[in-house]
């Protein structure tokens, strides 16, 4: 079964793509898959050492090789439900209980999960992995699971950052990971209605590529789209970078088919909107694998955009930047994507600039810098950058671009070029690789997100960043942490804010515990400042403790009663959410 060779088992993404410091102490990004691949990043080392107080002399490589875990019995032998396995064989659905397959599906990408893997620590893992090939296979598997009382955990792309894939240690039944990766076909495309019917195991980039071949796209581009699956998006209420044009997953979905222990749930038609009581799709979206397996989805598609243009704007400070985004949202003229990085992220982005090819480019860069800091008087320690992506027909894009830049100018924003914008979006995909580099040098980190009303954006950014710094200090972190944020989505009534935080853990005996306490404190701070528990990462098990105060007792009761009806024996026993 495919991905385990191409993908890292104890880090992010493709095995061939990683950051490293070469013999000259320069950072480079290996592989051929990304724009940054094969490039030297001359300023990363200084930024890295300067920001974290880290040093290339102090390495903390992963302590075990894959071989150690898989062949020396670090992984507990599977608890198999023989009757279930027999029946599975008889219906001809492929399965495996190889340690490698099981470990690969026992985790998402939370810091503690990856950290443990690097140290060779493996907790409870699924006892069996099954690969259904289609909706009917899933129906059979779920029936058998009910019949033999095994616990099912659906697995899509494995990019969860909410501990959703962790096997509950208290689970005594046999745990079966239901891997949807073989259900990856587009079943039909309806050009009259602009919809496509797709199997839910398809991975984002494949879906987009296949549709592109037909001249269409979904426009749904979460940062994880290289690896995350359609079913996973539905199960977590995912959000895509270009939601301003295409909408979030709840706007894109027309029809969902889900297999539950009670049977299959789906609507009877493809009407674009219905008034038929509460929308049952909303029980499914965000259910995080607790109710069943999403097998097929009909979703909206759009003709591929004729023209795309990146852009960027420099603001003298974060406050002005937020005010500009707010105005853009007020005028409802947000481009496909608009994101605002704070000063620390701006500096970080700078550190990832590849070696410039010619003296001319470096001269130009110098000129730009001179213009902004000296001529325009921007303080390099306060300025911040918004990155933009426009899409559509060329004429409209240009018009739209002008409108946005005009608004930006009112808030002191200066257009800073396409290149900066494009690099900003490219970084989205490589930033996850960077954490692995950090972990090689005693630096651990993570990102988390929230959504918040406009009037609180500045307050929440300031307070959460400060809280992180303070908590790190109080918990004995020896070096100042990186604590930074960006506004990644705009809505009519608020924004989505992302926080990044990382620190050098040299001198700490239990860095993951410290990390978790700080993240916990940061989440409390978010909630106290009027932020939501999650904008799109979901709850999983990581944020469960705050669900009751988030939803009220009655709200919890409603969700519980749905769970109790749909899955009375807790077959879908990943214990997320509730």
């Amino acid at each position, binding site marked *: 079964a495919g991905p385990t060779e191409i993908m890292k088992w104890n880090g992010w993404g493709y095995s061939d793509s990683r950051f490293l410091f070469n013999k000259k102490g320069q950072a480079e990004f290996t592989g051929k898959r990304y724009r940054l691949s094969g490039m030297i990043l001359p300023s990363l080392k200084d930024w890295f050492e300067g920001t974290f107080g880290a040093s290339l002399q102090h390495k903390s490589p992963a302590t075990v090789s894959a071989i150690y875990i898989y062949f020396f019995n670090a992984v507990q032998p599977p608890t198999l439900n023989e009757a279930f396995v027999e029946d599975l064989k008889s219906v001809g659905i492929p399965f495996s209980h190889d340690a490698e397959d099981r470990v690969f599906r026992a985790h998402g990408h939370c810091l503690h999960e990856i950290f443990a893997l690097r140290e060779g620590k493996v907790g409870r893992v699924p006892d069996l992995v099954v690969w259904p090939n289609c909706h009917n296979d899933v129906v059979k598997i779920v029936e058998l699971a009910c019949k033999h009382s095994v616990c099912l955990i659906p697995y899509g792309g494995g990019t969860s950052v909410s501990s959703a894939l962790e096997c509950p240690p208290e689970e005594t039944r046999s745990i079966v990971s239901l891997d949807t990766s073989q259900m990856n076909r587009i079943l039909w495309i309806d050009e009259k209605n602009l919809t496509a019917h797709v199997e839910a195991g398809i991975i984002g980039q494949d879906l987009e590529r296949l549709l592109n071949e037909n001249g269409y796209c979904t426009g749904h581009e979460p940062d994880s789209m290289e690896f995350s699956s359609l079913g996973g998006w539905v199960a977590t209420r995912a959000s895509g970078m270009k939601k301003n044009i295409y909408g979030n997953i709840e706007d894109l979905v027309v029809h969902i088919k889900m297999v539950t222990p009670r049977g299959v749930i789906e609507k009877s038609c493809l009407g674009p909107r219905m008034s038929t009581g509460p929308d049952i799709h909303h029980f499914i979206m965000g259910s995080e694998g607790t109710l069943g397996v999403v097998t097929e989805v009909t979703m909206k598609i759009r003709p591929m955009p004729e023209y795309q243009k990146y852009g960027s704007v420099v603001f003298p400070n974060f406050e002005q930047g937020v005010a500009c985004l707010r105005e853009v949202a007020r005028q409802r003229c947000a481009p496909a994507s608009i994101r605002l990085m704070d000063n620390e992220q701006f500096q970080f982005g700078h550190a990832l600039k590849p070696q410039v090819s010619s003296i001319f480019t470096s001269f130009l860069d110098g000129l730009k810098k001179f213009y902004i800091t000296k001529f325009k008087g921007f303080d390099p320690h306060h300025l911040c950058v918004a990155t933009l992506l426009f899409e559509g027909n060329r004429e409209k894009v240009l018009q739209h671009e002008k409108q946005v830049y005009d608004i930006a100018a009112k808030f002191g924003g200066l257009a800073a070029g396409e290149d900066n914008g494009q690099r900003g979006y490219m970084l989205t995909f490589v930033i996850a690789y960077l954490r692995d580099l950090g972990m090689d040098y005693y630096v651990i980190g993570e990102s988390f997100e929230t959504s918040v009303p406009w*009037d*609180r954006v500045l*307050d*929440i950014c*300031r*307070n959460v960043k*400060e*809280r992180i710094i303070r908590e790190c200090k109080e918990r004995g972190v020896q070096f100042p942490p990186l604590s930074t944020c960006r506004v990644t989505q705009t809505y009519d009534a608020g924004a989505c804010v992302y926080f990044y935080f990382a620190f050098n853990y040299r001198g700490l005996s239990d860095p993951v515990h410290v990390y978790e306490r700080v993240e916990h404190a940061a989440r409390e701070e978010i*909630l*106290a*400042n*009027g932020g939501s528990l999650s904008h799109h990462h979901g709850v999983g098990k990581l944020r469960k403790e705050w669900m009751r*105060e988030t939803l009220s007792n009655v709200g919890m009761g409603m969700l519980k009663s749905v769970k109790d009806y749909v899955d009375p024996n807790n077959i879908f026993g990943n214990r997320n959410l509730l």
Partner: protein
Amino acid sequence: MAAKPPYSHRDPMLKKRDDFEDILEERRNSSDLRYALKCYTPVVYKGVTPNAASLLKTTVLQSDQLHYVVDQLSKETGVAADVIQEEASAILEEMAHRQQLSTVRFFAFTLSKAFKALFRSIHVNEEGIQRLQQAIQEHPVVLLPSHRSYMDFLLMSYILYTYDLVLPVIAAGMDFMGMKFVGEMLRMSGAFFIRRSFGGDKLYWTVFSEYVKTMLRNGMAPVEFFLEGTRSRTSKSLTPKLGLLNIVMDPFFKGEVFDVSLVPVSISYERILEETLYARELLGVPKPKESTSGLFKARKVLSEDYGSIHVYFGQPVSVRSLAQGKVNRCHFNLMPRHIPRRPSDETQCFVNDSAYSLVRAQEENMVLKPWVLLASLLLQNQSQGLLLDELTEQAVWLRGLSREYGAFLNWPDHMAPSEVVSSSLSLHRDLVKISGGRVQLALGGQGPRQPCSSPITEEELMNQAVVVLSCTSYRNQALHVFLRPALLASAIHIATSAKKEEVYNSFSFLRNMLSNEFILCPGATLQDFEEACYLLGKTGALQMSQQEMQVTDSGQKTVNFLTAMLDPFLQGYQVVCRYLCEEATEALTEKQFIPAIRTFIVRLILAGSLRYYELLSSDLQKNALAALLRLGAIRKIKVADNVTLKVNRLMVNSLEDTLGGKLPTQKAVAARL
């Protein structure tokens, strides 16, 4: 910033306190002019935006908060919004400070001259200043000095100027505005003026609170105000006022700032400038309206010796740490934050508790001079006085006791006790007389009346009372040190048995009864009781078994001293009760209460049946009334324009008897209280 609460009870002897530096010393050795013109470049809050100060008024006038209230008032009253906005603008104009460096420099110069003439030294704990400097850079800071004198806020600004710290903006009472020129000078030195009462005036409240919050949010300057609301005329800390504390905490609750640092400051005067002024005021000589000429009549004052001042900048208290687990900030999630709302009960309760612990933090770091101990002893021996040797011996004993209880005593240990005593007496020679080796309060005539001696006039009585009340204001400085053990000692005294439970009931009764009189945090009865037991036990005055508590033989002296310290208060409350039961008519109005009770007490003293002159203090009388109102023994009834006091005689009577130890603190009474 330390997360520990500002006050916590451990062995008080172990309290660590900073050392002091005399800031006048340098003033005596170098040019005041150069000092006033020195380069002044304070460090500022890291979040402060340049030009913030000049935008202050506009920010307030354009705030969402103000707009909301203006619109609302306009809808309610039908008055055009811009008229109300104008009104708001006028209020702000009347209120706002206009701090300017030149005025500050003027004050720096003149105050240097005045302070050198008045005081021997001004001691400041420099470590506290360093902590403050740190705090100012990190978070918005609120300075909370104790309030005993007009001097306080000028002194504060003077000190901050001396140490190159950002000058505070000070909330001052509108009464200063009466002093034309001085009012404006104060305004230019950083004072802003608030009306004494504006309870129902929404517009005023909004302008005022927005003004304070804007300064805080932007971290322009430390905001300074007096928790006690007004100068304490008795040197006892006053029950804190919550309004401004609520306002300065609000930006934190709403997430507008990460944190707010509260810095309690204890200012102790060896001799209070307003000493006799306060005594007269308490005795009912009406307070002279604050006027410029009045303040400068104090010219005579300049030729006197007022000893030293100690200013202790306490540990900054983080509102965030204080509120941890006590205030749920999510409370504000569901409404726009600019819409005014009453604070929740939870918040009210938190602010109240914080206010009490902050006042206690002020009390804790008040520096006590030897004279404070002498005044306490002399007041307990009014009739006979004490031989100088006796006084010295007792003072040394009391020095030991007060240190055991954690007093911040400034006793020059390098001097012989007798020297310390005589130099203290000489500084306060207006209040004591020494004849034939016997030290007594300077009451004139033959001292307080013995029941059998010839009657004195009411005027003589009042003159003597001025001396006694001046003296009590020094004793009161030490009350917070002895208060809890004294409550326990008195409780043992009035309890019907030595059973711990019984004593606790009495303690709880007394504490409850006197909680308008002293700083006793609400809901901390058990904690106070334990603290008192610990202190009395530690000095060997009390022996405790599972069930019983007994005063030891060696502890008798301590217990007697403590009981005697509280006795005037218990007597005072009983007299108030007696008056209400025996003399008060149905038509007694709130306004008549003080004069009537005063006449009653004068009569009792002249008749020789009451010996404590300090019961003439209107402060005690008001507190007793407030306590009885709180306990429901009196109710206020509004009749036309007057508020009359309806007395529940049965209850008042039983309170009186319980205070006098004639009636056991029945559980029933205790429960009802």
